[in-house]
């Protein structure tokens, strides 16, 4: 098996220069099948990267491959098997969701009868039922986002680019959209590249996270590595929190007091259990009453702050 079969997206030294700004700078990154999150602040270059990957914009320098196809020369072939949900509003108000999605399926090359079947199926999967026969103009933001997602999935792509799919949604709508994205990756078997500027969101659905800032790669790793790197344990004792903290600091542990809790960092490269042993020994030696000892999963935010610091 060649690497291009397993790699979903791969870029090598990808650079995109606009007259005034550099949108992407020497970006080299590889993703595999599954749900990949692309994180960055607004203007970090996420949308530009998607446009290059769709073969809609040429890169200034460097190369990019999507599903083993070169974006510079095989744009049309890529767009046949890839779906795209843009960040902006993109729906005409005077047609119904069904008509619109059927039309978009035909624009991806599906014959008319197949387009009708696929549109009905896809709209059901994204959670639009009777309302799909009404003109889109009367839809709520949540329903519009679902129609946008449906048009990206209707031709059964092998990979979808979702640009800020949770934008403008209320917390419940956000949860539903994220659950849907998780299902697309897990149940539908379609690889997903989802962008967001909210890191916590992606943590819940992604297998792999890429962090970019001002067009440069800050980090690319699996979600496991992300949270493992900042694995921490929370310790709660009845009295003597301060003395425990001092004792552990003296033993060379990274300790922080957070209210009634003591957070101890567990370095990823640590030999197994050294930190746990240190906590146990310290609590025993000081004769403290241990109330709680639990693992704390680190949040991506903490990692994101690291390189900047």
């Amino acid at each position: 098996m060649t690497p291009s079969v397993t790699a979903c997206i791969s870029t090598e030294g990808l650079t995109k220069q606009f007259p005034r700004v550099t949108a992407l700078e020497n970006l080299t990154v590889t993703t595999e099948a599954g749900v990949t999150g692309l994180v960055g602040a607004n203007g970090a270059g996420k949308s530009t990267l998607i446009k290059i990957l769709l073969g809609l914009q040429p890169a200034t320098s460097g190369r990019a491959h999507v599903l083993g196809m070169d974006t510079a020369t095989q744009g049309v072939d890529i767009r046949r098997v890839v779906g795209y949900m843009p960040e902006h509003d993109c729906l005409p108000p005077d047609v119904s969701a069904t008509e619109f999605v059927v039309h978009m399926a035909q624009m991806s090359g599906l014959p008319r009868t197949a387009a009708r079947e696929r549109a009905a199926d896809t709209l059901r999967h994204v959670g639009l039922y009777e309302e799909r026969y009404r003109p889109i103009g009367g839809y709520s933001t949540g329903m519009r986002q679902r129609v946008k997602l449906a048009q990206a999935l209707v031709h059964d792509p092998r990979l979808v680019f979702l640009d800020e799919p949770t934008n403008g949604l209320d917390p419940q709508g956000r949860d539903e959209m994220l659950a849907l994205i998780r299902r697309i990756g897990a149940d539908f078997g379609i690889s997903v590249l989802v962008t967001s500027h909210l890191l916590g969101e992606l943590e819940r659905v992604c297998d792999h996270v890429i962090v970019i800032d001002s067009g440069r790669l800050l980090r690319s790793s699996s979600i496991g590595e992300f949270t493992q790197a900042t694995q921490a344990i929370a310790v709660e004792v009845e009295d003597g929190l301060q003395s425990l903290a001092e004792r552990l600091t003296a033993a060379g542990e990274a300790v922080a007091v957070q209210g009634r809790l003591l957070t101890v960092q567990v370095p990823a490269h640590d030999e197994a259990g050294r930190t746990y042993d240190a906590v146990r020994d310290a609590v025993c030696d000081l004769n403290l009453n241990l109330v709680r000892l639990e693992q704390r999963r680190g949040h991506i935010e903490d990692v994101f702050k690291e390189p900047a610091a």
Partner: protein
Amino acid sequence: MTIQPTGVIHDIGYRHYEGERLGRGHVVAALTRHSLRGVFGLGRTAKAKIMPFLLAMIMLLPAVVSIAIMALVKQQGLQYHDYATIMQPVLAIFLAAQAPYLVAPDLRFQVLPLYLSRPVTVLDYLGAKLAAMTSAMFLVLATPLTLLFIGELLVDLPGPPHTTDYVASMVSAAVLAVLLASLGLALASFTPRRGLGVASVIAFYLFASTVSLVFYGAFESMGQDDTAKWAMLINPFFLVDAVQVSLFGTPPSNGTGYPPGPWACLIVIGVIAAALSGLVLRYRKATSS
């Protein structure tokens, strides 16, 4: 005792599409068909059907009246080669009303990126839109001409049928359709608002026909009749009539004639090329940002 279930609802889950995926040619054809239907309001609201069908009916009226005249007095009514120039305001209104529908909503509601994220290029998209508008203009003009010809054959006027005249008018209908469609789409694409698009196309027609008349009158009053004939070519309908005159030798329908030679043909080609370049440049700009 429990009741045996007689039916079970299965959640079949997500199914992959294993069927056929058609090539770009089919996609462009589908877009053309969809756009052409839309021009006549098919697949749209009832309100959207009123205008195109009303105008198409008005286009048919002179043909129907002509057939009645032929049947009653055994004399040809309206001539084939005059049809387009006599009905020019109706054709201009049809163009102005329908060309913006084809381009403006996709720009205004930003649907264009969805087309371009599929195996459709900007040129495919524009080609489909242009083909749809051209076919619509041709249908609206060629249907009454053909009806008139069938009427003439059925009525069986004395003398041979005007077949050459009919063919000439059909060819110039095709030229007129391409010219008007490219001009109409180019003008309409410069604004994402449909109302403004309608206004700009109709304003262009009024401007061209008025300027043409003003120049014609001015040159004629100065005694420069040959120069005055050039002024006639500013109006796109007379320009295409001049093409018909130079290609088929039909009598000019403006009464005065046009400058001799192939100039009208060259100008038509030039205007179509300019309109199409404007259209492509407009979309290059719209898609690069």
